[in-house]
């Protein structure tokens, strides 16, 4: 799957590309408005990651351009501007998601996964993975055709893991994913452990293989 990263900061771009290339993504990079504009003209992408602050032009304007030419491309805004206005404007212009820097790479990967899923399988929102079957719209999970009742947070976690298969995810990242800004106000993130324990137990009881491994005591990994 092709992803275009529009980001002028070299170091950030490198890190994102490195993280994403481990998944099934082919990641291309544009460092300026001009480059981005050219690439959009020439190629099709599954998902475009757009930094709003670009040399040579306004990111929101570029967003307009993308929307006109590629109606079925998922767009995620990644911005250092944590301005509510930008977020609302971006989402109104047609971005699918908005991520304020700094964020965890696993968070980005999970968002890309979700956006592409949503775009690609517009008609059937069913995601199948061996014995697992997820209905993204109804937010239901089946294991061997038998429904497993998950809480909203457990479902969120499952989607997060699926968006970061074979990667080690820190408890930190999971806590931030589940609770947003509030997470880092607390000294410990034991609640993450509780949710994961429940998710593992429910999937295990339904006969699902144990894909979710605990790594180094503090991290988790969905291994396939």
């Amino acid at each position, binding site marked *: 799957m092709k992803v275009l990263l529009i980001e002028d*900061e070299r170091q950030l771009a490198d890190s994102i590309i490195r993280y994403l290339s481990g998944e099934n993504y082919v990641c291309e990079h544009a460092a300026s408005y001009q480059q981005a504009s050219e690439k959009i003209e020439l190629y099709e992408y599954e998902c475009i990651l757009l930094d709003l602050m670009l040399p040579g032009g306004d990111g929101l304007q570029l967003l307009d351009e993308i929307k006109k030419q590629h109606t079925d491309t998922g767009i995620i805004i990644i911005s250092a501007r944590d301005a*509510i206005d930008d977020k609302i404007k971006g989402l109104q212009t047609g971005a699918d998601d908005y991520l304020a820097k*700094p964020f965890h790479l696993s968070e980005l990967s999970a968002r890309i996964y979700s956006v592409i899923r949503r775009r690609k399988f517009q008609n059937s929102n069913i995601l199948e993975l061996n014995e697992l079957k997820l209905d993204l719209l109804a937010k239901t999970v089946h294991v061997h055709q038998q429904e497993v009742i998950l809480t909203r947070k457990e479902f969120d976690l499952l989607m997060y893991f699926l968006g970061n298969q074979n990667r080690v995810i820190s408890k930190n*990242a999971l806590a931030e994913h589940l609770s947003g800004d*509030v997470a880092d106000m607390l000294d410990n993130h034991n609640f993450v452990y509780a949710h994961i324990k429940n998710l593992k137990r429910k999937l295990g009881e339904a006969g699902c293989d144990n894909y979710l491994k605990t790594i180094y005591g503090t991290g988790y990994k969905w291994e396939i």
Partner: protein
Amino acid sequence: MKKLLNKSMKAFVLYAGIVLACSIPAYYAIVDFIWEHELKEHNRIMSEATRQNLQAMSLSDTELNEAVLLWNKLRPETQLQQVETARPDSTYNIYRKNKYIPSKGWDRFQGLVTYFPINGKTFRLTQEANMEESHETIIAIAAVAFVFFMILLGGLIFINRKISEKLWLPFYSSLQKIKTFDLHRPEQIRFEPTTTEEFEALNHHLEKLIDGNIAVYKQQKEFTQNASHELQTPLSIVKFKLDLLYQSKPLSEEQSGIINDAHRSLSKVTRINKNLLLLAKMENSQFNGKEVIDLSALVASHVVLLEDFLEDKQLTVQLQLAPDVSLSGNKVLVEILLTNLIMNAVRHSIPEDTIRITLTPARLEISNTGAATLDEKLLFRRFGSSSPNTTGTGLGLAIVRQICQLHGWKEQYLFKNNLHIFTVTWA
């Protein structure tokens, strides 16, 4: 506090009063003196006329006696009497009861006693004239003085008002402008031009002072915002690199722990940075949107949102929410306010404690158990209560205060019955 003009006014009035009061005895003395002088002259003329006329008539002794008798009867203000020896002339001033019109009471007379010979006999002539009594003179003069004092006072007040309206107008207009000036909401102040040199100088220097302050304040605010923005990228880079490092193999448990610790501190820095940015944005009035918020629903949903943390510490929440409490405010900021207050209580509670959240139509109260009272002054200050060993940024309550100030609400801390009570009042 008295107005400047009233201060000088008071001195003027006091001075005028003293001068006018002093003038009363002076006027009296002069009037009395002139009067007495004139009456003395009058008496002298009358006496002289009487003497000369009598001497010129060359009456016989019998005729003279008859004439003197008749004279004394007809002219009560004079008395002609034969005496043994002549003495030097003398004057006197006397009060006497009015014999003829008793209702007039006491009268004052100026008299002259002269001696002259007629037909070889010495006669004493007493010539009197009625003179105004002292107290009547004083009353009359005092009354006139009082009337003029009142006219003077009225005139001073009137002129004073006119002066304050015209002369001091630029001063009061400048004063009004400075009064309404607020550094947090700086609008360039332009004073009205005046023709008075002193006011022009005052306005000029005030303008310079205010412009300087605005510039410094703006610079400082922009600095915070710029610094925070500039930090976002390097923070992101560190975070990404740590995420990548976490993927490398093989990784020992110790190394993974180090990465986690680094992540944790990085989160704190990120959060401080975000909070500083939020404060700077509030100071730069970048949160203008206001809407009516259903606070009852918002508090309830916020508690649900935070239930993970509550469960983590096995905290109980006692909710007492009045229904349909609504409030006009910026929703983003009100949510931050709620999060900060509730999380503050969560973080400082001991496990299995109870947090009480009470919402009434006028205020919101959040309390948790505590051992000793905290310093309210430090509590709401930036980094006033931060400690290096917690994840708290030391900015949460400062943000609460700023949000309250922005909306015109009042934030308060109380320690009562072993409870830390934080209250936000808006009515």
